[in-house]
């Protein structure tokens, strides 16, 4: 299982493969290690593991063909694993020779012997076959749901610490910062540099990465956003500038770090909690996110500075009139937001992987979270992020996995019809 998880954390499988893999492995649908024996003949491969319940199926013939020039037949090994290196990222047909199955073992009714896979943009695809009839039914919908809820909370907490940054900046400056995702990316890539390249201790590496992102937040506020506020540029104009900045930042990171996906931690060690198969990294990440969220809540409600921040959020002119240095508060908000977002990036990189556009890929989820909760409220951002995280992870139970982000975005639109100000927002947001 460990090998399986680690092998799955491969560049080509983006996003949440670790979680999904954890789920799938648990669900008895194990998609695990490709056979290690043969040398890779290309970067692209199709693989799978044949398990009847927990029993690996050996010497089963699998044929992979592109229905044109390429055809290769392999046998599964003693662990049930099989792997075929294929020449190109195109479509292939995978056929399981049912005659070669051991006596008494049959494919499950919903698992066809012939499957079509599309490698385009993937590089690596795992093909699932399920056997017998009872294998899937053993997995009750409830334990699947529990697993999904756990993943959703994990993802939601990650989103929350990044979303609070967006929310605080919006609250104090009125800017919907489209370049926020790039800070997540920057955090993850810095973690990769510190931890995987420079091989620093994990905590030292994380602190350095967060420090660098915090500094970047301070610098961009001082040199971009503050001068623009001084020029009295309208908030919508500044928003378009932030879109431009996000593109610039993203492509600079692409030029520096390249387009490949970086494996930061290898996914961590597996931990089993009842029906939930997870990793120690995920558990630490959830704990740290939760602590960070509580810290922000304490800061905003119990400290003078936090109260001043909320006052500026509420009404900048009134706050200024009561003697609050608004620019100083905005500076602090940028520092806090950048630090939180950097933390989100570090945790994201550790749990999943880092690449140049990961932040942009979750930016809309962050906006959905912030908008759902009500722009400008930190509480709202947290609630919204948890909802979005849960929706994203639970929706694959009923719809295709690749549409899970779309579902989150559609929920955003639907909620705006009925409650335009968001779940916890104030009425003023509607035009």
């Amino acid at each position, binding site marked *: 299982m460990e090998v399986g998880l680690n092998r799955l954390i491969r560049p080509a499988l983006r996003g949440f493969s670790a979680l999904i893999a954890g789920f799938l492995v648990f669900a008895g649908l194990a998609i695990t290690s490709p056979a290690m024996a043969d040398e890779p003949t290309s970067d692209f491969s199709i693989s799978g593991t044949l398990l009847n319940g927990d029993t690996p199926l050996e010497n089963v013939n699998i044929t992979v063909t592109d229905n044109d020039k390429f055809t290769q037949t392999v046998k599964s090994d003693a662990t049930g694993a099989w792997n075929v290196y294929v020449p190109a990222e195109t479509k292939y047909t995978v056929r399981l020779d049912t005659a070669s199955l051991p006596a008494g073992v049959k494919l499950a009714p919903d698992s066809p012997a012939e499957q079509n896979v599309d490698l385009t943009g993937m590089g690596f695809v795992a093909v699932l076959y399920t056997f017998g009839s009872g294998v899937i039914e053993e997995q009750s919908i409830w334990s699947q749901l529990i697993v999904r809820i756990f993943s959703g909370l994990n993802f939601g907490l990650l989103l929350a610490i990044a979303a609070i940054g967006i929310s605080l900046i919006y609250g104090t400056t009125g800017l919907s910062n489209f370049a926020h995702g790039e800070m997540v990316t920057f955090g993850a890539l810095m973690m990769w540099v510190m931890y995987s390249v420079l091989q620093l201790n994990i905590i030292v590496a994380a602190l350095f990465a967060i420090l660098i992102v915090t500094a970047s937040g301070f610098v961009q506020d001082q040199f971009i956003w503050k001068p623009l506020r001084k020029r009295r540029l309208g908030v919508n104009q500044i928003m378009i500038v932030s879109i431009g900045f996000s*593109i610039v930042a993203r492509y600079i990171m692409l030029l520096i770090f390249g387009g490949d996906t970086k494996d930061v931690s290898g996914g961590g060690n597996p931990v089993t909690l009842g029906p939930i198969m997870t990793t120690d990294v995920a558990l630490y990440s959830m704990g740290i996110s939760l602590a960070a969220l509580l810290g922000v809540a304490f800061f905003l409600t119990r400290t003078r500075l936090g109260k001043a921040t909320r006052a500026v959020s509420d009404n900048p002119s009134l706050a200024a009139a009561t003697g609050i240095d608004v620019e100083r508060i905005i500076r602090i908000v940028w520092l806090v937001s950048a630090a939180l977002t950097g933390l989100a990036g570090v945790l994201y990189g550790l749990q999943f992987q880092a690449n140049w556009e990961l932040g942009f890929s979750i930016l809309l989820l962050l906006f959905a979270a912030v908008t759902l909760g009500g722009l400008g409220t930190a509480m709202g951002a947290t609630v919204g992020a948890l909802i979005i995280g849960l929706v994203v992870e639970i929706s694959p139970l009923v719809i295709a996995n690749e549409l899970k982000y779309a579902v989150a975005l559609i929920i955003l639109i*639907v909620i*705006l019809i009925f409650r335009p100000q968001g779940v916890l927002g104030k009425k003023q947001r509607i035009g």
Partner: protein
Amino acid sequence: MDFLQILGLTIGQLFSPFTIAYILCALGLAVHFGYTGLMNFGQAAFAALGAYGFSIAALTLGWDWWACVLVGICASVLFAFLLGIPTLRLRADYLAIVTIAAAQALKYALQASDFASVTGGSAGLHGFAEGFFALNPIPVGRYDLGFETISEREMFITIVGWILVAVVAVFMVALTKSPWGRVLKGIREDEDAVRSLGKSVFAMKMQALIIGGVIASLGGMIFVISPENNDPSTWGTNFTFMIWTVLLLGGAATIFGPIVGGMSFFALLMLTEGVMTGLVNLGFLPFLNVAQVAQIRYLLVGLALMLLVIFKPQGFFGNKRETLVNAR
């Protein structure tokens, strides 16, 4: 480095179907943003619906080219309704977030393998414009235009595209000069004032959203008809951001602006890309490789967007008083 070749490509880019597609999308966005003040960041979705409407009608239903065009237009009208009803009441920045989210959700759906039998999934659709090119009166062959050599198909789609741009531009001039157009500008400047005159702001915004969306869907069709290839990855957020850059370069509340903006923007991109590729090949830019030059194109788009909005929000042709990006 072959300067003549780079120059030829640059001039070619001025008139290419690619440029035409962006110009049409930017003209649509001018109706949305320039004249009505709607911050639509989902323009890629309208273009995508035009493209998919056309190609699906041609491949799955086997309809004639004109019916395919109608399907593309209807798809974008429908999307404008779906998008507009929940969002047009929202403030500008909310509208921006929701439109970009809707466009992205649509892209996920178009790419999904669940619907691949119709949409082609992540592989997209190909070879759907035979019916359209059957109309081509230009004899088969290669035509040397002095700066580049193009096929009869490219020639045909380029001519059709520019006629389309001209028709749309004339239509938009008439529209914006009409009483209807003046109300639109009124909405951009002060929604409440227009409301107090008894106009239905929501209905006007919806009409603007539909008209701009239909224009963008025509752009999407031109984009995919020319190479006969509809690739879902085209319709991402970068497509929308490019349209915004084109629009803001020329001037948001103008009709001439997006046209000249589109031509100069893509010619400039081609020129810098050509020169930089040349320099890389000669070894003058040792820290770059040829693949990275193509990435720098987007970096320049972002930079242009930032600098334009900060220093010249009215663009080349705009009137400084009409740059109310700030309206609401």
